[in-house]
């Protein structure tokens, strides 16, 4: 659980910066930030499960 929280904090902080820096309008920044946040979480979880099944 702690690892997931840390991953969520990381995704949130990176999403804030990426969103603001990459887009111009506030709406675009918000949408892009949310997208980056979701991508970090989903990719992190998928990679976590793939690594879980690896025998080495």
């Amino acid at each position, binding site marked *: 659980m702690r690892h997931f929280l*840390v991953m969520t904090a*990381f995704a949130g902080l990176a999403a*804030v*910066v*990426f969103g*603001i*820096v990459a887009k*111009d309008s506030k709406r675009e920044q918000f949408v892009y930030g949310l997208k980056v946040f979701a991508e970090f979480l989903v990719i992190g979880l998928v990679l976590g499960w793939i690594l879980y099944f690896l025998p080495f």
Partner: protein
Amino acid sequence: MIFLEVDLSQEDNEHSHETAPAKAWLMGAAGWFVPGLGHMLQGRWGRALLLGGAVWVCFLLGFYMGGHLFQYDGSLLRLPPMIGNLGTGLLYIVPWYLGYGFTDDVQRAALPTFEFGWTFLIVAGLLNYLSMLDAFDIAAGRKS
């Protein structure tokens, strides 16, 4: 058939002579030195709070989780993370001056979040590089 003749060489020259004003370099340097300051000096309070805040929180969380900063000690492998850490400006310089936060002591290394910690510290610096470039672009008039 109509052919349009465009003198691209002149257009290229105009772009190549475009230089950023001194103010932009100053804002970029301020943004690097204290995360958020580059935007604050331009009256961009919202951006300063969010960008600077993200960097500060990332850095403080890194230390809280037991992370340590990197410095070059002759090993090339330590150079890339040090460049990442250096992005936080004053937040790196002060601990370096005080000699705090650079050692892997056993208690901190035993924490389950130890590796997250130094990752957060590096990422704080990398995020501040982006924030610094944003402050530079705004001051140079390349961004609204």
